[in-house]
């Protein structure tokens, strides 16, 4: 998804390079449209990257667990501690963000 957005942004940049070729009377309008498209692409990219974030994290977890399963390795106490530390850090961050949001 992010690759598609990048391609669209590159296309937009390429189109912008042709702006001087647009007739004088339409140039301002064309520039305005390209500007709006750039802003919209940026907003869409932000939404998509958020959605991709969780999926990417879950893919990473799955890859790690698959590697464990393939190697038939057991979870060590250290790995478990690291996982739980991540949960605690995430929970603490979440509660702080929620508290901040409630006081706004």
């Amino acid at each position, binding site marked *: *998804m992010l690759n*598609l*957005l990048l391609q*669209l942004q590159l296309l937009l940049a390429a189109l912008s390079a042709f702006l001087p070729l647009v007739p004088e009377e339409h140039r301002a*309008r064309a520039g*305005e*449209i390209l500007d*709006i*498209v750039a802003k*919209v*692409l940026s*907003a*869409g*990219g932000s*939404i*998509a990257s*958020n*959605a*991709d*974030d*969780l*999926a990417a*994290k*879950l*893919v990473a*977890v*799955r890859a*790690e*667990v*698959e590697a*464990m*399963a393939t190697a*038939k390795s*057991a*979870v*060590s*106490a250290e*790995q*478990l501690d690291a*996982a*739980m530390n*991540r*949960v605690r*850090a*995430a*929970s603490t*961050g*979440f*509660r702080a*963000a*929620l508290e*901040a*949001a*409630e006081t*706004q």
Partner: protein
Amino acid sequence: MRHPLRVLALACALTLTPSCASLQLGSTTIENPLAAAQTMDQRAYALLHAYAAIVEEATDIVADPATPQAFKRALGQAERVATPAAETLQIAVSAYIRARSDFDAASGANQSVIQRAATALSVAAHRLNEAVAGAQAPIAELEGLVRARRG
């Protein structure tokens, strides 16, 4: 601007295209790390990491000023239920890892020591199974909220 509606339509299309493309509604491609696990401890490990990833995502949603307050409160309630379940899971998997280690260490001991270690491992495995089952529903609830918001 002579054609504001056209510009608006183009803006809408460009905004929604990437979001819709990342929508995985009804799809089977949503990653489920638990499905890759082959042992109970791996399942528990996958569940804890997946839960942490979900809470990290929920944090971003809560920090977003555009998120409605009622939705933030719903996320807060779901997290308050799910995190204790994750803590219970961690305790159960720690006990299971210890019991398994004791069982492995008892392999050269006499029969009664092996029997005691095997019983302890069986109890720990049963409790771990219960803890995994108990954690899945509240974690799935928080995940459902996060996915509903993110699409």
